[in-house]
């Protein structure tokens, strides 16, 4: 089966996958076109470096070409690709750290538990709604800067779960973590980002300063 270039944008992902599996390069390139920016963003947000993000994106697509026959279509192509890209990005992170373990679960690190969750400090209503904020050019910059300040282990979980929209289970699988660990890291990430964003986006006039008497 060969796909006509003119109508390729309307072909479903499943059809493209089938065509690519049958050897149609045009179909595979269309799949790449549909997902490359998302994959690049995923890699960039995990690695925080454009050069590594390009490397990982390229590795992910080349690995997809090589392993396409083994893709069983139990998940969407995008999910499969994310898994490959995430794995490639995590490999870069492990290499940076000189680790050769598979999982990013660090046994040596003090266990994080719910008793040590930092309390929200800067509490205030935001001056603008998310709808208004997305219209502003500075917003994406603010979001990326706040993300860059997170600890890597918190950032990875947040990127997969909240930016890329994976489920807790999928995030746990991708990172080789337990679900409870994913939830804990996600909570810390969300709280820290809330703190960062509210310091910039919060309206000081509505700021609530908690007293020590508080529950």
């Amino acid at each position, binding site marked *: 089966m060969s796909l006509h270039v003119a109508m390729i944008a309307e072909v479903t992902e499943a059809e493209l996958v089938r065509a690519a599996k049958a*050897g149609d*390069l*045009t179909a*595979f*390139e269309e799949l*790449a076109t549909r997902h*490359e*920016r*998302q994959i*690049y*963003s995923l890699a*960039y*947000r995990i690695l925080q470096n*454009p050069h590594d*993000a*390009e490397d990982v*994106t*390229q590795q992910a*697509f*080349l690995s997809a*070409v*090589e392993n396409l026959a083994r893709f069983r279509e139990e998940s969407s192509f995008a999910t499969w690709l994310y898994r490959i890209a995430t794995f490639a990005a995590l490999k870069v992170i492990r290499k940076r750290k000189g680790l050769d373990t598979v999982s990013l679960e660090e046994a040596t690190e003090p266990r994080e538990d*719910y008793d040590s*969750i930092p*309390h*929200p400090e800067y*509490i*205030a*209503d*935001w001056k603008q*709604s*998310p709808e208004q*904020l*997305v219209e502003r050019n500075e*917003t*994406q910059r603010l*979001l*990326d800067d706040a*993300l860059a300040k997170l600890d890597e282990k918190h950032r990875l979980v*947040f990127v997969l779960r*909240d*930016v890329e*929209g994976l489920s807790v289970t999928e995030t746990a699988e991708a990172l080789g973590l337990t679900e409870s660990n994913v*939830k804990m890291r*996600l*909570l810390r990430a*969300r*709280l820290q*980002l*809330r703190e960062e*964003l*509210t310091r910039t986006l*919060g309206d000081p006039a*509505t700021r*609530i300063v*908690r007293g020590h008497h*508080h*529950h």
Partner: protein
Amino acid sequence: MTMKCEELLKMLNEYVDGTVDPAICEEFEKHMAGCNPCQVVVDNIRKTITLYRNGQPCAMPISFREKLHQSVREKWRQLHPTAEK
């Protein structure tokens, strides 16, 4: 108020993701109704997540896109030597 702010904090994920047990959800909301700081924190968190979910993918350099497609085509030809393209 039976639920404390700390307890609410621990269940924040489940609450904002809508996966919290209905009985706990009721307690959670009862607490929030009487605790303005928690109300604002929950609202801030929801907005934070919304902003990141609706964020734009990073701009990918065009020069990289060309390079990417070229390397895909090369790999493809290696693996499918009989293909016409």
